[in-house]
């Protein structure tokens, strides 16, 4: 466990996690995670399956509850207080492995639902903004189609637009390309790359090492609910400090 006196205050980063623990029944899936993410930073989290990386980013917007430790997002502590949860969720966008688009709504309706119902934006204003976002992810012509009529890559881009429509300060990506056919991965990564360049704070769980090398400010290796090693991509790829990192990288880079 690292010493966290160097990032003591919640103001030190836009996300501050201290000693976060989580159990599923008796299974100890997060064993004291300490992490601070600065505004604008792009962090890639990777590691073997079952290492707790998805669970960790899901605790940040309270899709999973942490049972020990503390999490601050933009200075707000994540507690059971429903107002804090709502405030934090309004600052965080999330993109899921399985897209999780709403199948009974068109692409545009998926994107405008949050702004209209949560931000109380007027419908025409929300639709205008929604179309701009669909243009930004490159599929304005699919606006009136239903998710089932779109390819996986298109669906994931709609999902990114849907998350961006809430104008979040932070984006969480939970293996956004794992469920995609190979030829569709790059179109999603391109959108994510642009987002990173635009200064968005991003936490990505992904095994796309090319993306990590090009975009990430920091890479974090999870294993068995702990952070094994973290550092900038060149250090992780060229000079990993831990044998576990070397072994895992050799497994996924072939």
């Amino acid at each position, binding site marked *: 466990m690292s010493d966290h006196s160097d990032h003591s205050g919640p103001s030190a980063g836009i996300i501050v996690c201290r000693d976060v623990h989580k159990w599923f029944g008796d299974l100890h899936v997060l064993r004291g995670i300490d992490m601070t993410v600065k505004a604008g930073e792009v962090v890639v989290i990777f590691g073997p399956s079952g290492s707790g990386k998805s669970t960790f980013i899901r605790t940040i917007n309270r*899709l999973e509850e942490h049972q020990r430790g503390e999490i601050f997002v933009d200075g707000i502590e994540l507690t059971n207080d429903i107002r804090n949860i709502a405030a934090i969720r309004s600052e965080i966008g999330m993109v899921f492995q*399985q897209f*999780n688009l709403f199948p009974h709504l068109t692409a545009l309706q998926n994107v405008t*639902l949050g702004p209209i*119902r949560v931000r109380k934006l007027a419908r025409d204003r929300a639709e205008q903004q929604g179309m701009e976002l669909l243009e930004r992810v490159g599929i304005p012509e699919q606006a009136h189609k239903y998710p089932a009529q779109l390819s996986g890559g298109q669906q994931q881009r709609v999902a990114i637009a849907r*998350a961006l429509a809430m104008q979040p300060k932070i984006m969480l990506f939970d293996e956004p390309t794992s469920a995609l056919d190979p030829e569709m991965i790059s179109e999603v990564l391109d959108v994510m790359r642009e987002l990173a360049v635009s200064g968005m704070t991003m936490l990505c769980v992904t095994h796309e090492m090319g993306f990590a090398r090009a975009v990430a400010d920091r890479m974090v290796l999870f294993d068995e609910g702990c952070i094994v090693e973290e550092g900038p991509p060149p250090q992780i790829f060229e000079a990993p400090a831990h044998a576990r990192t070397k072994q895992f990288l050799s497994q996924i880079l072939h």
Partner: protein
Amino acid sequence: MTTPDSSMPPPAPAIGPVGWLRQNLFSTWYNALLTIVLVTLLVPLVALILRWILAEARWGVVTANLRLFLIGQYPFEEAWRIWLSLAVLSVLTGISAGIYGGATVRTLATWLAAGQVMLGALAAVSGLGSATTVALVANAAIVWAAFLAVRWRPRAMPRRLVGLGWLASIPISVILLQGIRGLPLPIVTSNLWGGLLLTFLLAIVGILLSFPFGVLLALGRRSGLPAVRVLSTAYIELIRGVPLVTILFMAAVMLPLFLPSNVRIDQVLRAMVGITLFSAAYVAENVRGGLQAIPPGQVEAAHAIGLNTLQTNRFIVLPQALRAVIPANVGLFISLLKDTTLVTIVGLLELLGIGRAVLAQPQWFGAQLEVYVFIAAVFFILCYTMSQASYRLETALGVGTR
């Protein structure tokens, strides 16, 4: 690559009636044998049935008692109030069909018009007086007139007004049917309501009220609040463990025992409450099935964009869950319609009860078959309408396609 020019038309499907016969009825020797055996059996049977319907049946039992079958003992000189309520229903249905334009509402509108024309024709041959026929056929015309008027000037009818109209139609109908002190409408107590009128009222009220109640129960059963969950579960299991007849008896016989003697709850109202409470438990179980079919990722995604629990249910979970359970719910409502016949047991004379009362008259002794065939036909038309409308609704909402 195939260009549009080089594509070929499909092979001609039709090969004439002889070809059709050969393909479908005489394709193999055993198929041919089966066809011949079935035809020799069916032809005499159909002939027998047709002869009975056209020549032997004493349909006089239906025509002579049509007034009873339609409205029970409702005073005939006040029957215009029923036709007027139906006219309100006709206007609203026609307007809704015009505004929403979906196949579902149009199917319902078509059948409402057709049903009233059929009843009008029946009234004409039964000598119920031309006024009844005119009223019913005029109602059917009103459905189409309202539909066409809205189609012609869609902007003239704001949707909100139609919704208000539907809400207002229930108290308006009740006031019209029952009458109210202070208005020049004589009170017609509900123990005089009967026949098709009562069947229709029980079914519509039961369906309209049990649906929202059942959805709330289903949500309650999955609620995170233990008290709500336990109460909902207990209610659903209790009601589902008891036959409808028992509930109707409780409502009719036991309830008055627990109430002060000066409080009298209307007998029809009690039956309506009993049917609604019963049906709601079954709606809840259907809807729960739909709710369970929604992947958890949907709720997570809704929470992630900031929707609260209420909004998540309203915009994400329920729209998907309810459309998945349309077929099951329509099946439930069809059996609800048929279960309204059970209110005979507590002394209400709905369509079947009237049938039995009619058969008790000495001059119609032995006409059971005619009466029951007529009642069965009426129920069939009502149920068939509902199932057709639900097929349209399924197609329109794309059940199973997305």
